[in-house]
């Protein structure tokens, strides 16, 4: 398909579009059409495009860097280019103003490849009636269809009355059987109790989770079986490795043990006193990297909270209690009210699947807590963490000349990069999600820069 032209054409192009294979041919054809018809064209790009080019170079993606640089140069030479501030695609107000200036017969288009950008900018449809969204595919331009997937919760596989599995009282069990690992003795003195059941140490550097009677369900059995089939190789995700049985009754599952690590909660309660600021940011980087790994596989954590993350060292961040993650249409049946934005009624958790959007609340909240070491709702007047208004956020976007009295504000204003501040600010204030891939890239470059500084200063 082609983008329709009119007397006045305004087009906003998000930077990843430029480096899509053969996009330059589509752009060339479009510009030729407009010029041939004697029509006007303005091409808007985010004012941070120079930084993008530098990021590609820093990532050793020179082909992308030079392609982007080249196309921007050409547009500039042709007098078609206008740079506009969108704060890393999180703020469309200036673009909205430009579109508003356009006449009624103008054609406004936005081209982007990213879900996140589409979801933020689609609100422009309210103020701009002749606006169309496009993305680039191998067959040319395609109109964006409203991606409702991100926000509409779907139904989970759920059974009201479950007669498919036998249930037994699991207190006092000391041996279980795993088809893969044989008979496993449970180390009773290592017992740790949780909401769904208890966890014991066993042979082979593994742990066994034994469900409480009421949690031995067909849904759990099927979910865990599928998880085991997936056979994830990542050693930082303590994934279920096999089911365990007592006699022929399914009672739980077995997973790798993580020794010598502390939970993120414990580290937070100790003010991360054992780690330097750069090390703590490295913990955050690995934390986000592993979540991205899971999301790329269509796995949602669901019950993401500091208690379920173990840290052995800045480069060793482990995710535990994976048996209750959400995969396919199996829901995650538990949540922690402090780390969930939506309010769930008890059964809702079991019957409804969570969305990626839901997950971004604990992701942002925990990332903030790791980096700044304060709750995101913190302010010098508000020490109470159980403040029910989760949308409060007192750290300013603009940090020029602000008075820095405390370490958390110093971290926010001087240590975080401008992009990170934007990502947090727009999420907590306006609910605008920045994709994990952006976060991971940003932190990666940040840590490389810090490491260079550390090495050159001989610290």
């Amino acid at each position, binding site marked *: 398909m082609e983008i329709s032209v009119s007397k006045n054409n305004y087009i906003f192009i998000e930077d990843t579009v430029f480096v899509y294979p053969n996009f330059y041919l589509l752009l060339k054809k479009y510009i030729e059409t407009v010029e041939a018809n004697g029509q006007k064209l303005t091409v808007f790009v985010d004012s941070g495009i120079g930084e993008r080019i530098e990021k590609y170079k820093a990532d050793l993606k020179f082909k992308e860097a030079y392609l982007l640089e080249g196309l921007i140069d050409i547009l500039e030479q042709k007098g078609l280019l206008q740079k506009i501030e969108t704060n890393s695609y999180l703020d469309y107000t200036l673009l909205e103003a430009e579109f508003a200036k356009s006449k009624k017969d103008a054609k406004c288009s936005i081209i982007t490849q990213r879900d996140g950008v589409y979801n933020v900018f689609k609100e422009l449809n309210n103020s701009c009636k002749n606006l169309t969204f496009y993305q680039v595919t191998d067959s040319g331009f395609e109109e964006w269809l409203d991606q409702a997937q991100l926000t509409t919760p779907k139904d989970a596989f759920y059974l009201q009355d479950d007669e498919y599995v036998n249930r037994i009282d699991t207190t006092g069990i000391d041996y279980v059987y795993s088809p893969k690992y044989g008979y496993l003795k449970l180390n009773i003195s290592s017992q740790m109790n949780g909401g769904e059941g208890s966890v014991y140490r066993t042979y082979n550097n593994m742990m066994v989770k034994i469900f409480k009677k009421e949690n031995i369900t067909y849904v759990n059995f099927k979910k865990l079986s599928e998880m085991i089939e997936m056979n994830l190789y990542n050693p930082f995700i303590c994934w279920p490795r096999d089911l365990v049985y007592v006699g022929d009754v399914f009672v739980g599952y077995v997973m790798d043990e993580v020794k010598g690590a502390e939970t993120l909660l414990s580290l*937070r*309660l100790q003010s*991360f006193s054992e780690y330097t600021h750069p090390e703590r940011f490295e913990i955050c980087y690995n934390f986000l990297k592993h979540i991205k790994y899971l999301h790329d596989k269509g796995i949602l954590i669901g019950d993401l909270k500091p208690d379920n993350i173990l840290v052995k060292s800045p480069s060793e961040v482990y995710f535990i209690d994976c048996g209750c993650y959400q995969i396919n249409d199996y829901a995650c049946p538990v949540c922690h009210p402090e780390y969930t934005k939506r309010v769930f009624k008890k059964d809702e958790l079991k019957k409804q699947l969570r969305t990626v959007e839901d997950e971004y609340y604990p992701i942002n909240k925990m990332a903030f807590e790791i980096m700044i*070491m304060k709750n995101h709702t913190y302010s*010098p007047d508000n*020490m109470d*963490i159980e403040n029910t208004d989760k949308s409060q956020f007192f750290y300013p976007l603009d940090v020029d000349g602000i008075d*820095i009295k405390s370490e*958390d504000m110093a971290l926010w204003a*001087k240590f975080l990069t401008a992009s990170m501040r934007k990502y947090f600010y727009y999420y907590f204030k306006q609910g605008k999600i920045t994709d994990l891939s952006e976060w991971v890239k940003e932190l990666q470059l940040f840590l490389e820069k810090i490491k260079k500084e550390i090495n050159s200063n001989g610290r």
Partner: protein
Amino acid sequence: MDGNFDFFSKPTMNGGIKLPVCLILDKSGSMSERVRSSRGMVVKIDELNNNIQELFRTIRNDSNARLMSDVCLIGCGGEHPEVINGYSSVDKINFVPLTAGGRTPLGASVELALDLLQKRREYYRSAGIEHYKPIMMIMSDGQPTEVESVVYNAAQRCSDMVNTEGLKVLPIGIGDSARLDILDMFSPKVKTKCITNMDVFVKLFEMLSVSMSQSDNTVFDWLNDQV
């Protein structure tokens, strides 16, 4: 380096979170009476002392609870309330078993507890220390021995704090003579639990230790189920 902050070294600020817990313990004369339990007849104050010690032992053995808990103990007995322990971590508490005796200055005890909480909150604010919503356990086994207005004013102040989301109250009546209606005045959101069986008394402290370890509403949920 920026000002006083060296971003290449370890953090200097207190980034931890506290859970302030105040236990207002009835040590009036009537606590020396005996009540029934599965172990036979026991003395109320002995049971209280054992439960407190067990609570502290549990907290000390739980790394998260030990780091979070900020505990204040107020003795409600004699002529005036006594600060057995001002807010501090459980490690610093050297608990001496209470002896029963004297009157029940409940109103004054609650006022004292609220004053100490206020001071603690000011300290948190000045030090930039985040905290969970404070818990206050108000326990009594009988009629307060003060002038009605003293009790009433204390109850009003306390319930105002609960209603403005500043406090969570756990009202506990011990034994048949406990004045549940009076305790209810201090707790607009949670109905007073009357404990006549000492095994339930033990369970209360177990549930409290869980709440102090997980900073959640376990003990309140348990209380609601019981009432």
